[in-house]
């Protein structure tokens, strides 16, 4: 009789405890993005911060995402009021310069901020090697399912979102993602067709796993 009761109690308690334990492993602030694997939302935004050296774009120039097809794009949403953006700024600037002769484009997108404040912030931070564009009304941000800054999107050579990084990027994530996306892009170029597509699919799959495992 006691054994029977104990079994019933255990059978009842186990799923509840299991459910609660699973709940503890989840971060309620972590919003899953449906974007990775899909085509990156198109945009046309005007440059307000020109960048430096080879990476420079004139102020007022319109950056069209479609024109960046064939290159890996690192799209970084930031704001001058964003504290975490300070942590990744130097890294992004350095890596963008490092990869300046590779098929990679870095682009900053100002989020809910005034371009003048953005420029002042860039000056305060000691410059930004790559250009930044303004996003009035946060339309592009909403199109990318943004919920805060900094968020960084890695787009593959076919203009698809390969990976979304929430919070300041780390050197490892930044370099590994760019390198793997460039490699996948080169593979596509070398062998157009099925093999290249599967390489891309693999890269995308890994990215999704990396994100969900966070």
């Amino acid at each position, binding site marked *: 009789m006691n054994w029977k009761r104990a079994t019933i109690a255990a059978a009842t308690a186990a799923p509840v405890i299991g459910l609660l334990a699973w709940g503890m492993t989840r971060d309620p602030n972590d919003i899953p993005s*449906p974007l990775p694997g899909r085509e990156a939302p198109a945009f046309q935004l005007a440059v307000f911060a020109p960048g430096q050296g080879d990476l420079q774009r004139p102020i007022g120039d319109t950056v069209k995402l479609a024109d960046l097809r064939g290159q890996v794009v690192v799209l970084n949403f930031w704001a001058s009021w964003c504290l975490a953006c300070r942590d990744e700024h130097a890294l992004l600037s350095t890596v963008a310069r490092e990869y300046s002769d590779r098929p990679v484009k870095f682009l900053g997108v100002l989020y809910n901020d005034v371009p003048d404040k953005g420029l002042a912030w860039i000056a305060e931070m000691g410059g930004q090697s790559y250009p930044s564009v303004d996003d009035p009304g946060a339309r592009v*941000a909403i*199109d990318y399912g943004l919920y*805060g800054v900094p968020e960084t999107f890695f787009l593959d050579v076919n203009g698809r979102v390969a990976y979304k990084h929430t919070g300041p990027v780390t050197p490892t994530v930044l370099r590994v993602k760019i390198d793997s996306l460039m490699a996948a892009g080169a593979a596509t170029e070398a062998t157009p067709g099925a093999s290249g597509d599967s390489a891309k699919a693999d890269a995308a799959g890994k990215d999704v796993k990396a994100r969900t495992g966070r």
Partner: protein
Amino acid sequence: MMPLRGLVRAARVLAAATLLVATVQVTAAAAQAPELPAAPKGAPQDSGALRVQVLGTLSDAQKNDPVLEAKTKTVASELRCPVCQGLSIQDSPSELAQQMRTVVKERLATGQSEQDVKDYFISKYGEWILLEPQAHGFNLLVYALPALLVVGGAGLIVLLVKRWTAAPSAVAAGDGAGADEVSPD
């Protein structure tokens, strides 16, 4: 024998109470899981002063169209504000929520249905953006489970209470506590 019997009875009452509390808690937890749109008390309300700022593609007539405004409100109160805790973009005064409401209004103004607009936000933020999960597939569990647990729990309690209050000789025999006559206590 009397104190022992009293003790056993007390233990049973305690067990029943624990079961009841556990049932209620599990039910409440299940009901809370989808974070239904229960705006916290004293949550900032839309003041009207913080109206949408960028109305790029809306004409003056559309800006003041009460039907469009009502539709916008309906859709906006079903969408979760990404930078808040459990608030809809209708109830949130945050900048992003206002910008999202502008997008809702503009999309409705172009003739999109309310479902179209919701689908757009789902395609960007995932189903997470809906304050109330859609009632299909796995989500049905969220709606069905609390009701099932309440019914099941009530049934279990009725069954146990019936058994415990039944003629003590029958239970006592099973318990192996002896077949003493029941003593009034």
